[in-house]
């Protein structure tokens, strides 16, 4: 219907393009040597329009394309085609190859079986098992082999690769998480976690910090000066902390200060407790409190409950309560590993809970076991809001105010190991409570039915259920305990294809998705995880298949906090934001003194994290407030946190977290003026024009640029040598102009280079360039678009990008990118028609990003398989 009509006109278009551009090109430049008489290399180009489904033909034509790109063909001495002619020929070949690829895949608009990405899989496991560790800082997805792909989203089904290594690590992770979710040995009566398991001994150590401080203070004052052994004030020293459980060995409490900081007496407040200065390193043993446990836990959940408050004396970041573990101080292997952290903003004392499953806590457990003890570290992980000022502006008298950050008051805390997580209380997520007079296998069957239906995202079939129950039964018969046997069956489910893939059974003709399949697609799109109960209910009663309900659900999902995962994944991959964390040199100027180096590293790490997060917050705000697609690149406001506000030089309204504020003059380009994008684009290169040009052309204009060929023929060098002996005399623009004088380079560079100066105002980290005195440097960001439209400055560039509402250059490029993410596959030539109607539908609905997303979700391609 729509498809066949579409492909008929598309086919006609392909043929006419061939006849108009490629056939004359071949006749002029190729057929003389590659025709009927003694074709060179046995290769002929005098035939009819090739169908590149034939693999040998495809290889021949792609080789020809490569040789033309590298200037090998036509050979020396023959008339050279112009850059435009070359481009047209290469584009036709590429297009033809793409069509052939689509046919091999089973037709336009379809995709192969899509596997969950690493992050989707981790989120799915946590949700299915009812586990949640909101403050944990480790990234579980790092345990799986990276699925990042250079040129496409990690959910691109056609490019995904599944291998033994991935399966092994997925199974390891599933089993680790299961051990946390179902740790207790069940005796058969009552709840699964009623009793402590044999191998995880629960313990608790309570520390009343205020009482200890008061006592130390009293003792110090009571000691005559002569006996104080040179101590200037009270200190915590070493304190023995008895265990809560009778008969368990005690722990030891100690504190480490930074030597250069004020007297210890200032840190102990006998009325309130211990004041923790910020740890001056990203993680280290200064300004920390250490509780040494006399053993090493082998499982369970490590929990810190702390009563704490923020002491905000400076105009700087709020304190952060952080939990870490480490080995014996001063010995090899005494690195500290951060486990969880929470920002403390309240001035009055409140309870904060940080917990991490021991099995998932990254650390040097081998060393810990050898030392037979575990150091639990509590510190204040506040990062500075701004860098140390430049040497010229540095006032050593104000040194303390630059470096001082806000302190964390610790009134009391307890460290405990529990068999299970205290909350969320989803004890029945994996195993249902037994019913009266129900035998084990019946309980297993009931529980597996419930679990598998949730895990498979649709009602489990009897055949499937029987297979998993049989696995349990066989394990039991082999002598394993009830819980272990059950967990093995669940582990198998967690790596079965029904969980690992979005399975959508289909036939040769296209059919609509079932409501269950639609729920899966929708949930992974908007939340990056498995559907929740409400969505599954809409699938169960079939209402999700109706436009109205589908719309309602999409809006519900987007309004939820979990939609941040969508904004994060889309921006992270689309804008290559991961790269920000690893670029050298440091974001800020060199440190002033030894004391500053820790601060600088801390600030550096924090600002990079913020730069990488800003696009996600910006996008989410756009979606929530239904702003236009073009406002992604043209906006009167920015969404920043305290640190970024300082970075950009804006003042935030009072509050915490990420907030909206009016954008300064040079930051009104939405993503285009976000320092994170500029940083990711420039790749920390001093002369980043080409990199920036490629970034803009590919990611904001949607034009794919092939990788540059190796330059053994060194045409650029020849050109340089021939024309100008002294390279330094050239300005960057003149230097780049050289690319345009050679056709093979020009093919790509005529589209890249003129965009390379758009960001001329900014240095490699997205800050306005300044000279050595700190004055702003004049800049010229003129250039032209690939279609040769010129612009005089950034504002004009931005206007060109956003002219035309939802059919603007940017909106067209963005909708293509978004659609690929939504569909989980690269786009093919059949999608253009769809995208046009999608954009039209979005325009009728206000033209916002949310409307665009809705139009995509309602589209035929999304709802059919």
């Amino acid at each position, binding site marked *: 219907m729509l498809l066949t009509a579409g492909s008929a006109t598309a086919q006609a278009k392909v043929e006419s393009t061939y006849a108009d551009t490629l056939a004359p090109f071949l006749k002029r430049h190729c057929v003389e040597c590659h025709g009927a008489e003694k074709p060179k290399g046995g290769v002929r180009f005098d035939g009819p329009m090739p169908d590149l489904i034939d693999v040998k033909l495809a290889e021949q034509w792609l080789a020809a394309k490569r040789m033309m790109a590298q200037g090998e063909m036509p050979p020396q001495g023959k008339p050279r085609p112009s850059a435009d002619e070359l481009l047209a020929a290469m584009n036709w070949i590429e297009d033809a190859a793409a069509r052939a690829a689509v046919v091999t895949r089973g037709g336009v608009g379809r995709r192969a079986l899509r596997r969950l990405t690493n992050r989707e899989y981790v989120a799915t496991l946590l949700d299915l098992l009812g586990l949640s560790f909101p403050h944990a800082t480790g990234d579980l997805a790092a345990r799986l082999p*990276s699925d990042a792909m250079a040129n496409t989203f990690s959910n691109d089904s056609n490019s995904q690769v599944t291998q033994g290594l991935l399966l092994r690590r997925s199974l390891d992770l599933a089993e680790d998480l299961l051990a946390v979710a179902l740790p207790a040995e069940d005796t058969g009566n009552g709840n699964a976690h009623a009793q402590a398991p044999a191998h995880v001994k629960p313990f608790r150590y309570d520390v009343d910090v205020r009482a200890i401080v008061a006592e130390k203070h009293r003792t110090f004052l009571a000691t005559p000066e002569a006996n104080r052994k040179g101590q200037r004030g009270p200190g915590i020293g070493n304190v023995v902390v008895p265990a809560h459980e009778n008969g368990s060995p005690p722990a030891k409490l100690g504190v480490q200060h930074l030597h250069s900081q004020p007297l210890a007496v200032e840190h102990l407040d006998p009325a309130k407790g211990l004041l923790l200065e910020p740890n001056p390193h990203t993680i280290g043993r200064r300004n920390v409190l250490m509780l040494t446990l006399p053993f090493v836990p082998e499982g369970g959940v490590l929990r810190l409950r702390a009563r704490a408050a923020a002491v905000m004396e400076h105009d700087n970041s709020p304190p952060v309560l952080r939990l870490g573990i480490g080995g014996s101080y001063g010995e090899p292997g005494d690195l500290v590993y951060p486990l969880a952290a929470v920002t403390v903003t309240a001035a009055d004392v409140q309870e904060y809970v940080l917990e991490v499953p021991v099995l998932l806590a990254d650390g040097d457990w081998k060393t810990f076991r050898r030392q037979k003890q575990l150091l639990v570290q509590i510190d204040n992980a506040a990062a500075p809001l701004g860098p140390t000022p430049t040497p010229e502006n540095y006032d050593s008298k104000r040194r303390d105010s630059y470096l001082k950050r806000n302190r964390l008051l610790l009134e009391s805390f307890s460290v405990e190991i529990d068999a299970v997580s205290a909350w969320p209380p989803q004890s029945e997520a994996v195993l249902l409570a037994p019913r009266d007079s129900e035998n084990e296998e019946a309980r297993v069957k009931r529980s597996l039915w419930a679990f598998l239906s949730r895990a498979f995202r649709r009602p489990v079939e009897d*055949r499937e259920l029987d297979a998993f129950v049989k696995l349990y039964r066989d394990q039991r018969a082999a002598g394993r305990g009830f819980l272990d046997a059950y967990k*093995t069956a669940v582990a198998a489910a967690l790596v079965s294809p029904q969980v690992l893939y979005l399975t959508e059974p289909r036939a040769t003709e296209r059919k609509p998705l079932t409501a269950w399949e639609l729920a899966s697609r929708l949930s992974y799109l908007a939340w990056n995880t498995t559907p929740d109960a409400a969505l599954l209910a809409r699938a169960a009663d079939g209402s999700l298949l109706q436009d109205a309900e589908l719309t309602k659900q999409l809006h519900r999902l987007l309004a939820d906090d979990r939609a941040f995962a969508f904004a994060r994944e889309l921006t992270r991959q689309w804008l290559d934001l991961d790269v920000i964390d690893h670029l050298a040199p440091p974001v800020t100027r060199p440190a002033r003194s030894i004391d500053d180096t820790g601060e600088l590293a801390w600030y550096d790490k924090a600002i990079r994290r913020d730069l990488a997060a800003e696009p996600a917050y910006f996008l989410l705000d756009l979606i929530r407030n239904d702003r236009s697609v073009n406002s992604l690149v043209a906006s009167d406001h920015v969404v920043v946190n305290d640190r970024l506000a300082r970075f950009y030089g804006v003042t935030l309204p009072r509050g915490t977290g990420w907030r909206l504020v009016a954008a300064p003059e040079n930051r009104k380009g939405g993503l285009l003026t976000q320092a994170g994008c500029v940083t990711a684009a420039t790749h920390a290169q001093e002369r980043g024009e080409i990199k920036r040009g490629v970034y803009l052309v590919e990611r904001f204009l949607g034009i794919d640029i092939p990788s540059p060929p190796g330059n053994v023929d060194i045409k650029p060098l020849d050109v340089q040598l021939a024309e100008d002996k002294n390279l330094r005399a050239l300005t960057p623009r003149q230097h780049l102009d050289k690319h345009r004088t050679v056709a093979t380079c020009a093919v790509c560079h005529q589209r890249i280079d003129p965009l390379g100066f758009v960001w001329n105002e900014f240095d490699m980290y997205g800050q306005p360039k300044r000279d050595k005195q700190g004055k702003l440097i004049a800049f010229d960001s003129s250039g032209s678009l690939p279609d040769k439209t010129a612009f005089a400055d950034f504002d004009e560039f931005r206007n060109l990008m956003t002219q035309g509402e939802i059919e603007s250059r940017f909106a067209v490029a963005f909708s293509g990118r978004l659609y690929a993410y939504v569909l989980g596959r690269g786009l093919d030539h059949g999608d253009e028609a769809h995208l046009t109607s999608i954009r039209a539908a979005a325009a009728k609905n206000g033209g916002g990003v949310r409307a665009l997303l809705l139009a995509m979700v309602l589209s035929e391609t999304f709802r059919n398989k």
Partner: protein
Amino acid sequence: MNPFPLSRRNFLRASGVCLALPWLESIAGAAPAAKAPKRAVFVFVPNGVNMWQFHPAKTGRDYELTPTLKPFATVRDRLTVLSGLQHFKVKGGHEEWAHLLTGNVNSGVANKHTAVRPNTVSIDQHIAETVGQQTRWPSLVVGADGGRMTSSFDRKGEPVLADFDLKNIFDELVGADPHGRLKHRASVLDLVSDQAADLRGKLGKNDERKLDEYLESVRAVEKRVKADLAFKETPKATVDEKRLALNADPYKGNQQDGYVDTMFELIFLALQTDSTRVVTFTSTRSEGGGPLKALGGDWHGQGHNTNDKVETAESRAFDVLTAYDVWWHERLARFLERLSAVKEGGTDLLNSTAVFFGRGMSWPAFHRGDNLPLILAGGEGLGFTQGRHVAFNDQTPIVAVDGKAPPVNKDLGKNPACVSDLLRTIAERMDVPAKGFGESRRTLDELLS
């Protein structure tokens, strides 16, 4: 209808997956006629080098150790410095990690919309197809980035995912299985592969390829579980814990040494226990941050900044390159010393292990791919003669031209040689035929005794 249908596990048992015992001096002593197994290790290091300080001017045994080769002083008689080699059609460029071991001009991500297979088989997988049957792991593919950042490609041209997790590699290597999970894994894998087989009928033709990929993964894990379980019962080499920094973070400057040295130690252990005979270590990506880049200075970017001029013109950029070159050579020298310190069958472990240390770029500014800075070490027992500087393709000592790198020499002389020739030679010395591999036209007999 077969009244005794074989379960899949029974079938595996019946087909006789055979496992080799680790090669130990005692076993060699008991059967002196037994020869040491042949091994190959392929190491990829990205970016170019400081070409003014790598290739020696003299060839033969008496070549001078150039500044970046100095770390090899104690092992120079166990390695060969190679000059003049290149790929014929692949001319350097980006994504050089994707064609170093394949010699395939269409390799890796260079073709974004290809309908043709993305790449072809890499030499390590080619060798492993034959040799890998004799060890519990057909090959070991590792890297600091891990995942798709790999120089190893299977017969279908798909990347072989690289392992990056030192702790996990170690646990699997020594058969640690800390939670006792291996025993039950087989039943889990049986079940899921049955589920996949059922699914196959319902998903339609085009999904079958993906599901087959899944099924192959399951089979691969199954074989691995069996092999690892059996390995647990065998005598093992002693592990020197001091040489293992299993928690080293390759992204942190002060832990990079620990990470790479530990990876090499794990490779050494894998060879010593005969867990595998083919190893590929794709150290890290070329561009844009990433692990093992925190020596100070943007490795890739400064390569561009050298503009291939003489050192005095861009000393800051060249200093960065030199620092990385020396660092990597120190790591490799340490690995070679380790292999040479272990006695085996009258000589040492290095004697039966060919170590190829390769880069896909030479002059970094324009990503040139001629006169690649390559090193081949060990493998004397495979027939390689070591301790020399050998120049191919009529390569002459590097002399600046107009204050810059000499231009590419298009005339490769009477007996041209390419990297694929070297890869093929290594394969054939391991008794694996590789005629015509990649761009290969001949073997490099100049390297043999």
